[in-house]
């Protein structure tokens, strides 16, 4: 059951926004007709496969492909040498700058392999078995190097260095030795020593989280075709077809306009499909072979060579007055970046204290490379990790003060007008309302039984806008097509159709949403950062508004009145000049004679949406722990979130429930396990345990609506926030149930048994 609290009056008289129509892509998805990345095929296509490193760190001395090339049925073989040399330079991709040389070397290694599973060479052959045989014939000579997987080991002065040319940035003094610590970042306010001196109670703890994968069901897959005239096409599952176009063009040294990327349906991404792995390789193979090439990762490859997010160490020290006022916070974050720089430690730092008004703090973050796969974005990148440490410490501090955890958080809560820990002043935020929603929820008063515990945690995410293009075209029967450039991951087709229908005055069933290829719609940043409903929705809304203005102009022409005498309501033009006695003109009636009033009816809007409102959430979790086995059962889970305005409440609830489910898995079961040789030991869903429906209770959601005044319908991003609080909410519940503060994730049965044994 879901509650929608405080639905605000907008004066908009909304008819479609806020309702729950069936999703337009639903039938194909539940009947198996939807075409995902691996479902697409072309006549004459070859099978592409990748040879991956068995070593986590090694110098490549030579790659001999002669025997493999001689194998009948082998049509192409590429290595890193087939990509043009790249300078180390950052360039705009799907949602910000990324180092194109690192991306290229992650697709195919040059000089060194940096993790178990790093791609070395690729083969295109006429069959899967021939491709496998060819991979086995590629002779690679390595100089195996010492490796390091854990973050603090990688930071040590005597650690094996991944890149001898890398010196830590962000320090006061320039270091004289290379390091795996890429950079240090700090945020500070006030006087930390004075703050702790004024504290009556201080808690201090060291927390750890393992690397975890985004866990999307659909593996990476693509088909690439390089024609003889240099025109390329790619069909791929990703979070951004324009991102694929940009990266492939740069990596291969071709014009972006020569690459057309068609987005397949996407079977989950969660941030993990915001970069390229296969697509440039498949294009290079296709160019060499003169035929289309299809590549599909195995699950083993997905785990070993894509994602995950960082494993981390979080050190937190908090001080408070006896009345519950937090006066000082010292937070240190050490995040794995994997093989190349770029962990999400910056947003980890910025979000760590984003829910609290703390006068004195120091937040220090380290971005650290190590011999594991390069991390990729994962919902609210970096925030769940820092929130795990901070929210655990806050829970402990509230307990020491004997305060109710909600009352303690409310006492220190940020509100409109308070400066965020990362600098800016908050406005139009709904954080306090989410805490109050949990306090008012019946869940908060359910009595607990033996071996049961209750945990609360909160979370924050910025949300972003960015560049989007959308078109609204009217069909001659009076229906409409909405075209956008964002893959539909979380129901965006439905929300785009609903916003267009709301403006046009059409039933939502008469608006068909389409996700177009890169040649058929203008640029859009990728689907990520909880930006699509906000930013692309703004483009859709403005395009629909332009269409309405055009429809009014045409009605005025038909009636021979001024446009100021035409009003648009409920999908029809109304003539305000009563003396003319004109019957209403429906959209269909105007569309039917569009040729006589100026031609086809449609509008395109391209914009860079600003004004995304930040989101907050508060999660409450009840668990029961079996003290004999250490098994944790989640009994009840309630998530309250400020969503601005829910365009389609059911999909917003789905986002909240999905984020909570992923966070619960992160808390209880998920982790990358490496053997002493630096090889992943659990690269499959049997051994990498993710929660399934039978592991979880129904996750109750409370949608708090504090509208974003910068969006036409008040929307805020909703997809990131719900994965921020669960790690700590679950850990706080488990800690309460067993009476031992749990510092290390996952809270697996052996770890809980060990904690119980300390009592």
């Amino acid at each position, binding site marked *: 059951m879901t509650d929608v609290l405080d639905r605000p009056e907008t004066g908009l008289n909304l008819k479609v926004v806020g309702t729950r129509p069936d999703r337009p892509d639903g039938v194909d998805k539940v009947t198996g007709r939807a075409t995902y990345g691996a479902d697409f095929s072309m006549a004459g296509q070859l099978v592409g496969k990748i040879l991956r490193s068995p070593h986590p760190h090694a110098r490549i001395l030579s790659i001999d492909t002669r025997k493999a090339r001689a194998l009948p049925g082998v049509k192409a073989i590429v290595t890193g040498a087939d990509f043009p040399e790249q300078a180390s330079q*950052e360039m*705009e991709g799907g*949602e*910000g*700058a990324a180092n194109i040389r690192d991306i290229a070397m992650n697709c195919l290694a040059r000089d060194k392999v940096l993790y178990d599973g790093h791609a070395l060479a690729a083969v295109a052959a006429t069959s899967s078995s021939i491709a496998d045989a060819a991979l086995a014939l590629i002779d690679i000579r390595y100089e195996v190097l010492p490796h390091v997987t854990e973050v603090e080991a990688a930071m040590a002065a005597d650690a094996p260095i991944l890149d001898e040319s890398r010196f830590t*940035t*962000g320090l*006061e003094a320039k270091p004289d030795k290379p390091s795996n610590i890429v*950079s240090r*970042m*700090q*945020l500070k306010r006030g006087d930390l020593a004075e703050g702790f001196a004024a504290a009556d109670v201080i808690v201090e703890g060291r927390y750890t989280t393992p690397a975890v994968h*985004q866990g999307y069901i659909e593996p990476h897959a693509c088909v690439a075709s390089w024609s003889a005239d240099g025109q390329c096409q790619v069909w791929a599952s990703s979070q951004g077809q324009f991102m694929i176009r940009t990266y492939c063009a740069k990596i291969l040294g071709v014009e972006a306009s020569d690459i057309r990327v068609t987005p397949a349906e996407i079977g989950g*991404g*969660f*941030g*993990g499909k*915001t970069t390229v792995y296969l697509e440039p390789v498949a294009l290079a193979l296709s160019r060499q072979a003169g035929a289309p090439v299809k590549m599909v990762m195995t699950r083993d490859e997905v785990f070993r060579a894509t994602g995950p997010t960082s494993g981390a160490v979080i050190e937190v020290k908090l001080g408070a007055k006896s009345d519950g006022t937090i006066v000082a916070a010292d937070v240190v974050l050490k995040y794995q970046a994997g093989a190349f720089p770029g962990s999400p430690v*910056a*947003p980890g*730092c*910025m979000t760590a204290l984003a829910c609290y008004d703390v006068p004195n703090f120091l937040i220090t973050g380290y971005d650290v490379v190590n011999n594991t796969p390069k991390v990729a*974005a*994962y*919902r*609210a*990148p970096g925030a769940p990790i820092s929130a795990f440490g901070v929210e655990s410490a806050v829970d402990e501090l509230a307990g020491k003060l004997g305060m109710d955890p909600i009352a303690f958080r409310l006492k220190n809560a940020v509100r409109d007008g308070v400066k965020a820990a*990362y*600098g*800016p*002043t*908050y*406005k139009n935020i709904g954080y306090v309302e989410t805490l109050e929603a949990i306090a008012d929820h019946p869940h908060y008063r359910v009595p607990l039984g033996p071996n049961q515990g209750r945990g609360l945690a909160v979370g924050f*995410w*910025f*949300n*972003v*806008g*960015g*560049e989007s293009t959308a078109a609204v075209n009217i069909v001659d029967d009076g229906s409409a097509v909405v075209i956008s450039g964002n893959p539909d991951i979380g129901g965006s087709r439905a929300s785009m159709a609903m916003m267009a229908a709301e403006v046009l005055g059409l039933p939502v069933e008469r608006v068909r949403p389409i996700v177009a290829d890169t040649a058929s719609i203008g640029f859009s940043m990728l689907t*990520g*950062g*909880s*930006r699509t409903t906000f930013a692309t929705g703004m483009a859709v809304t403005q395009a629909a508004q332009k269409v309405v203005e055009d429809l009014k102009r045409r009605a005025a022409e038909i009636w021979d009145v001024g446009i100021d005498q035409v009003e648009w309501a409920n999908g029809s033009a109304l003539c305000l000049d009563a003396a003319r006695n004109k019957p209403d003109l429906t959209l269909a009636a105007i569309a039917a004679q569009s040729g006589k009033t100026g031609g086809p009816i449609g509008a395109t809007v391209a914009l*860079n949406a*600003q*004004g*995304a409102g930040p989101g907050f959430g508060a999660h409450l979790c009840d668990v029961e722990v079996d003290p004999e086995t250490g098994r944790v059962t989640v009994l009840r889970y309630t998530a309250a979130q400020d969503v601005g305005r829910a365009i389609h409440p059911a999909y917003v609830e789905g986002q909240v429930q999905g984020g909570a489910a992923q966070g619960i898995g992160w808390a209880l079961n998920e982790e990358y396990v490496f053997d002493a040789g630096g090889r992943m030991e659990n690269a499959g869903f049997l051994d990498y345990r993710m929660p399934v429906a039978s592991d979880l209770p129904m996750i109750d959601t409370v949608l708090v609506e504090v509208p974003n005044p*910068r969006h036409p319908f008040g929307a805020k*991003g909703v*997809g*990131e926030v719900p994965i921020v609080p669960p790690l700590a909410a679950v850990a706080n519940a488990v800690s309460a149930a067993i009476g031992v503060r749990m510092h290390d994730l996952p809270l697996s049965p052996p770890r809980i048994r060990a904690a119980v044994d300390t009592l």
Partner: protein
Amino acid sequence: MPRVVAAGGECQRFTGGATTFDVEAATVRRLIDKLDARYPGLGEYIDKRMAISIDGEIHQDVGAVALTPTSEIYLIPRIGGG
């Protein structure tokens, strides 16, 4: 004159450690240009790595946004997402 605060990121690499700057500028673009003139290389760094929060609202890649003498301006690391 708008005051700019660098919060996080590595702007100090270009500024000799300074994190607060008073800059006479009417738009974000002019602000970045003037910071780059004062601290060569900072402009490109801001363009590629930083977002700009103006009066509590985070902007990325918007040069035309107007500034006022009382604008609250923070340079913060660019934000992506999952």
